[in-house]
């Protein structure tokens, strides 16, 4: 307990700060701080409740388990959960239910506003930062921490299993459990990483294979990381663990039905490999000796000949490579025939799962190395990062080792190291150095660090003397960690650590400036990949498999473009500190040629993504025009207005519908248009059933307006059956709309709900836990503050970071 001891500013001083921050007192004239007049308000609000709510929600009937007559409006403190529920239900118009007497809008509004204000006042008087569980680093955070700690880039999926999500995000403390199997992975990862850090990989090298999806179109240039005039292939960043000779093996794509490689003919095709834009190898596939094609054998099979073997053997080479991260580029030299092919409608030529173009294509690249006898540890980014001193003699070694290990441990543990830490780590060092010398010792110490609970868990200190179950301010060091894991999904950098160690991070202006700096840093890309990646389901795009029988315009190039577009779009909101409502209706998006063609937008050429303006009526404006979302809310073989509607309810309105009751028949698909009722009529049947109607009346109608987008987000005016698409919808409150542009207008009218949803999602992500009723006042405060800042992205982040939820913690009681 002596480490990270902080002098606690009395919790009450923070209460004042919160109350000061809450602008409601000035904004809402009907409320006064005077208790007598509040009582009067309570009485008049009680009359509203009695008239519209208590008929069902009373102690006798207890509809929905709620008895409002038993609660005291003059003292909301002990029933905030129930009252937050009332706020939510009345605000969204879900209560009172349709068909019952409903208050006029101003009456309902006044009730909700009064309740919110009272609840916020209670929250300010009794600060409750909520419960916080111990968080383990998830796979992404672990990988990023390793990058920032050791300058080693690892492929996360090849060392650790994926994490399970809770409340929509995989950094949820409760879901991040630990098992023997995972611990074993951590041990293995630590061994591998420690060797990579010092550039001393041991044992036989494991081949690492990069796969080019078989449904990628390699008929043209496929990546902005590949040279102009190239065709197909792949570009990827690969971490070479040490200096040495590496074996590269390329495998061309096989044809689907008959086996053998595609496009190997008498015509030679040049294939090149470059590293960081410098050509290291050039080879040829095909040529005169391959004239005549393969020889068919009996029963449709092909006689195996040594052609394939010859091809494989001609596509490997060894090259000496310096340790570190390099861009590996493998590509074919484009021929004019590739362009000619574009003149035809490809969809008519195409085999459903492959994109043949009469030429050879790339299937895999395997890198093995360094070959043991050639491996050497020399200058590399990671060695520079680790070896902060060099022992002059053997007797210097322990001193130097201690310096190196303390430096690493401080960063890894996100706090100053103490003797106890060093005892464990130096024991590991000695163990290793006895076996294999100085660097082996360092390797063992790094392994120890990487499996230490101080690294793997986000341990937070509790100040001495704080009363149980009282809110206290977390230390500067813990705040630094919360910030860096929130904004970077990684450990704090030196600047942040320094502010924390100086204990200046809590100063409002320092905190604000640090948040600003961190958002501007490239590491805030983590918010795009992890926050938006999960909130907006961008991560699901990679695993989505549209049925090629029905959606034959789909290929891997499009899949990657979908991901890229939404990521760049969200990133622009961060980088340009835009109004977050632009997410719903921005007048621009990011396209490359492939995606622009898919969207039917002319004038975009090449693989590079660039900002493209969108007209006010463009169906592509905002998130709901993005292929990534339109596709991942569809079935593989058809669209689903229900899933799309549900997505909107969940992610825009923040009102996820409850799961459907059992025994609900599914819809028929469009594969036999003669038999099938139009989607709309089938769904009408759903809504005719009162059990379903409650949710489907909203869900389906919202989804209908996106029906012009097919299962991969391509525009259609008619269905496969020939029927015209009807994209009109109507909400229970009578709002009518038709097509995506009008849907957007509806969503913009509900921008307050969207803002609440986004704030809640950010808070869930920042805290690593689901929200509770006690968090609602914080959500409202963040929103209010952000509204004054014109809803700039940064204002939401600043709001989260200054919330009591983020900056405070409840002291654990004896039995918490």
């Amino acid at each position, binding site marked *: 307990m002596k480490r990270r001891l902080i002098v606690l500013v009395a919790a009450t001083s923070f209460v004042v700060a919160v109350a000061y921050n809450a602008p409601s007192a000035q904004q809402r004239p009907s409320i006064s701080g005077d208790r007598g007049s509040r009582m009067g308000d309570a009485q008049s609000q009680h009359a509203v409740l009695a008239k519209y709510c208590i008929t069902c929600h009373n102690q006798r009937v207890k509809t929905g388990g709620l008895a409002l007559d038993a609660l005291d409006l003059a003292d909301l403190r002990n029933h905030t959960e129930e009252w937050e529920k009332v706020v939510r239900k009345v605000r969204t118009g879900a209560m009172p239910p349709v068909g019952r007497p409903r208050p006029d809008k101003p009456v309902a509004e006044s009730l909700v506003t009064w309740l919110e204000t009272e609840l916020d006042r209670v929250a300010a008087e009794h600060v409750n930062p909520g419960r916080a569980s111990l968080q383990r680093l998830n796979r992404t955070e672990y990988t990023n921490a390793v990058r920032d700690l050791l300058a080693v880039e690892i492929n996360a*999926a090849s060392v650790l299993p994926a994490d399970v999500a809770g409340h929509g995000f995989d950094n949820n403390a409760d879901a991040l459990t630990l098992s023997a199997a995972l611990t074993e992975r951590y041990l293995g990862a630590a061994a591998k990483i420690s060797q990579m850090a010092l550039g001393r990989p041991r044992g036989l090298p494991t081949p690492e294979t990069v796969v080019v999806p078989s449904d990628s179109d390699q008929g043209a240039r496929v990546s902005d990381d590949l040279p102009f005039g190239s065709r197909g292939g792949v570009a990827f960043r690969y971490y070479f663990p040490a200096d040495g000779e590496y074996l590269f093996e390329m495998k061309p794509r096989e044809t*689907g039905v008959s086996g053998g490689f595609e496009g190997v003919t008498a015509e030679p095709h040049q294939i090149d490999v470059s590293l960081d834009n410098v050509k290291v190898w050039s080879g040829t596939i095909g040529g005169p000796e391959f004239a005549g094609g393969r020889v068919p054998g009996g029963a449709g099979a092909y006689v195996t000949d040594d052609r394939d073997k010859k091809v494989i053997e001609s596509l490997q080479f060894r090259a000496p490579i310096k340790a570190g991260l390099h861009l590996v580029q493998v590509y074919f030299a484009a021929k004019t025939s590739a362009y000619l092919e574009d003149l035809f409608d490809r969809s008519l030529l195409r085999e459903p799962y492959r994109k043949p173009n009469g030429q050879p294509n790339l299937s895999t690249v395997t890198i093995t190395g360094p070959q043991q006898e050639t491996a050497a540890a020399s200058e590399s980014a990671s060695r520079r990062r680790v070896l902060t001193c060099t022992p002059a003699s053997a007797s210097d070694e322990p001193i130097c080792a201690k310096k190196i290990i303390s430096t690493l441990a401080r960063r890894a543990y996100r706090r100053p190291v103490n003797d106890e830490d060093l005892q464990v780590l130096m*024991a590991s060092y000695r163990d290793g150095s006895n076996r294999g010398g100085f660097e082996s010792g360092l390797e063992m110490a790094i392994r120890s660090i990487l499996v230490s609970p101080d690294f793997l868990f986000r341990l937070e200190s509790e100040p001495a003397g704080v009363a149980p179950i009282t809110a206290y301010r977390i230390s500067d060091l813990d705040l630094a960690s919360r910030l860096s894991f929130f904004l970077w999904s990684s450990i704090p950098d030196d600047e942040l650590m320094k502010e924390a160690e100086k204990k200046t991070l809590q100063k409002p202006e320092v905190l604000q400036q640090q948040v600003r700096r961190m958002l501007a840093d490239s590491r805030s890309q983590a918010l795009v990949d992890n926050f938006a990646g999960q909130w907006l389901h961008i991560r699901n795009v990679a695993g989505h498999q549209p049925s090629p029988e029905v959606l034959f315009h789909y290929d891997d190039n499009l899949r990657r473009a979908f991901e890229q577009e939404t990521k760049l779009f969200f990133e622009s909101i961060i980088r340009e500190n835009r109004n977050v409502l632009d997410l719903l209706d921005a007048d621009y998006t990011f396209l490359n040629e492939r995606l622009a063609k898919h969207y039917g937008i002319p004038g975009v050429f090449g693989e590079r993504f660039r900002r493209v303006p969108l007209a006010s009526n463009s169906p592509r404006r905002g998130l709901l025009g993005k292929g990534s979302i339109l596709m991942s809310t569809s079935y593989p*073989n058809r669209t689903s207005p229900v899933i799309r509607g549900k997505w909107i309810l969940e992610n825009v309105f923040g009102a996820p519908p409850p*799961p459907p009751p059992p025994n609900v028949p*599914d819809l028929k698909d469009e594969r036999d248009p003669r038999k099938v009722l139009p989607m709309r009529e089938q769904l009408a049947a759903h809504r005719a059933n009162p059990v379903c109607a409650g949710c489907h009346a909203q869900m389906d109608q919202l989804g209908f307006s996106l029906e012009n987008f097919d299962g991969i987000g391509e525009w259609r005016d008619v269905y496969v059956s020939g029927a015209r698409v009807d994209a009109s919808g109507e909400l229970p409150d009578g709002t009518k709309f038709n097509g995506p542009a009008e849907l957007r207008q509806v969503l913009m009218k509900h921008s307050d709900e969207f803002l609440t949803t986004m704030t809640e999602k950010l808070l869930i992500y920042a805290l690593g836990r689901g929200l509770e009723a006690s968090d609602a006042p914080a959500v409202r405060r963040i929103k209010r503050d952000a509204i004054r800042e014109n809803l700039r992205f940064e204002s939401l982040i600043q709001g989260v970071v200054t919330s009591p939820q983020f900056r405070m913690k409840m002291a654990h009681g004896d039995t918490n």
Partner: protein
Amino acid sequence: MVIAKIALPRRTFLRGVGATMALPLLDAMVPALRAATPAAHRFAPIYFGNGANMFEWTPATDGVGFELSPTLKPLEAFRDRTMVFTGLDNYPATDQGDVGGQHPRAAPAFMSCMHPKQTEGADVEAGTTIDQMIAEKICRDTKLSSLEVSVDRNDVVGACDHGYACAYMNSLSWKTPTTPLPMETNPRFVFERLFGVGATPEERLARVNEDRSILDGLTHQISKLNGRLGARDRTKLGEYLDAVRDLEQRIAKVESYNSDFSVPEQPVGVPPTFREYVELMFDLQVLAFQADITRVSTFMMCRENINRSYPEIGLPEAHHSMSHHGNNPEKMKNFAKLNTYHVETMTYFLKKLDSIQDGDGTLLDRTVVMYGGGMSDGNVHNNYSVPVVLLGGKDLHLKGNRHVKFPKGTPLANLMLGLMDRFGVNVEKFGDSTAEIDLLTI
């Protein structure tokens, strides 16, 4: 723009799940493995989610020499080692007043016969599953106490039901009522669990010694920390300490292991198609049994609510959406076709086990394979008369060539009791059991 249906190649969609992959050649490997101790028995539950078309699953006749149903037809070659059960209810999986959660409850309730608690927090709770109870009994001396594998991604956003923690959907095995075991999806990680890391026995031993040293320091660190934490955080760190101790014990077992153990070549990634992926996972499980690394292996062949589609057999619609066929005859036929495909894929495991000599018989004789799911009619999320088949197990005196029908309302737990009895696990009551089904006299 209607296109004719095109015959699809079997190997489709070569797509990296991670960035790295390649196909292994486990078949070509004939490792010199440690002979299992005499009469070691194995247990291999295989689970499929989303229920089945039970009209095509349930055999028309019962008793000895029954007529195999269309879905179970691929089991013909193993008929004399097949017992099909009808009428067993997985009542604990039903809602019992909870909202939603039909899918998340089905898998944990299947082998625990306990009603999973509705929660999205850390307080997940079901029951200890029979694979773990059997492992506790028969895997005391093996390197791994059990193996849990799956072929479904567990990180798809939004794939878990509201109100239910993802653990319910992802885990089939529960070590205790509050400890779901993660299922490993990466063949390479499964391989490393089984055989360790390193190309030679010396490398593997060096690695084990280093790990031991690291773990020593770690135990010390965690214990010290515990004193400084609140109860809730202590529990969490306790998980880590338990895991570390578990590994320490296993390392001790590795040492007593035969050191000239020829390790097969490791797989480097995830195969592209369902069939190849599943077969690779079966290969690894067979290796685990063959080398006696563990005697219990639990396999989630398709998880609940999974939306994998199978264009390679002409079924482009997603699995879950196919299961909600709405009693449309054509869609029901498609769903049965998928169920049949899964059974057929599973026979690969049976064939493989049967091809390996183990003692006087084959590995299949000493293995009880349980194939089934916690949901019967996927269309209505029904948990009554769930699909379950026992295969193999001749050496445990399991009968074959039988379709056994039980009166309405017989708990699945009764079968679980009978199964545990065969493995020497003696418990009086399990979940909602009312009596034990005696597999010897059935």
